[in-house]
């Protein structure tokens, strides 16, 4: 089968023409199609810009809030550290000293080792008697 025979076979195909009402139907569809008003693209652009601005503002405010939160947490940590330091200092101050300094000379310093002082004698309010003088 050569090209001429093929083209002859193709030429046997019946020609298809548009139906009689084709033009009227096309015209009807054209009339039914609403033309896009001139302000429509501007409205869409304005809406898109508005959405963009709102979104950017929301992101910016969220970032600002996060920054404030971080600053607040840092301040809180400083306050907690200060509180801990003060609490520690108060506890230290309230604790019974281990030594009582009595005085001293050029040759010696006199202290009382309170761990050696009898608890009973202290609670009974008896006269304080140093149990030992420690000489440095």
């Amino acid at each position, binding site marked *: *089968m050569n090209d001429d025979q093929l083209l002859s076979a193709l030429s046997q*195909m*019946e020609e298809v023409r548009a139906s009689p009402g084709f033009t009227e139907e096309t015209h009807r569809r054209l009339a039914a199609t609403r033309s896009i008003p001139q302000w429509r693209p501007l409205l869409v652009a304005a809406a898109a810009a508005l959405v963009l601005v709102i979104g950017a503002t929301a992101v910016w405010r969220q970032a600002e809030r996060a920054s404030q939160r971080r600053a607040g947490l840092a301040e809180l940590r400083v306050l907690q550290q200060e509180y801990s330091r003060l609490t520690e200092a108060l506890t230290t101050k309230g604790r019974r000293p281990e030594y009582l300094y009595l005085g001293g000379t050029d040759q010696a310093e006199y202290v009382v080792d309170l761990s050696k002082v009898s608890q009973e004698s202290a609670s009974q309010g008896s006269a304080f008697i140093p149990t030992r003088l420690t000489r440095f």
Partner: protein
Amino acid sequence: MPPTDGELVARISGGDKQAFVCLVDRHKDRIVGYLARLTRDRHLAEDLAQEAFLKLYRYADRLDAERGVTGYLYKIATNLAHSELRRRTRRQWLKERFLLPSGNGGPPRLEQEAHLEKTELQQRVGQAVFKLPLHYRTAVIMHDLQGVSYADIAAATGASFGTVKSRIFRGRQLLKGELGPYLNGAEWSGA
């Protein structure tokens, strides 16, 4: 003297609907005939052709009328038809794959109306043309049935000149393979 296509397009871009009607009357048979061969469905062809004319109306102010309205119409019509045929093929495949599994595992088939051809020969040729891959079918129909030039086919399909010639050659080879046994068996003279 009737107005040229360029004059009609210029009037259409100014909103002249009468010029649009004139343009539709002038080109409707050519475009409907092309789409009917491409889709093998007269109703779909007319619907797509109307859509093509409406698109031409919408974009009339951007057209270079000196290049010829026919080329633009073929291009719009081809794009619309290819999109629709691909959509239908996808839909048919999904339908056969998930809704109505036939179990034969064959390629998706398009449900077409076969009322365009009256004689057996016309039906055979119509079926053979429709069985061609879409790009081959488009090129063969435009060139061998519509008489469109290689350059216009290239412009309408977005393919190069060489690709168009190759598609027509390959399409004809496939058609010969499909129709040869029937035409030789029927001792068809080719006249």
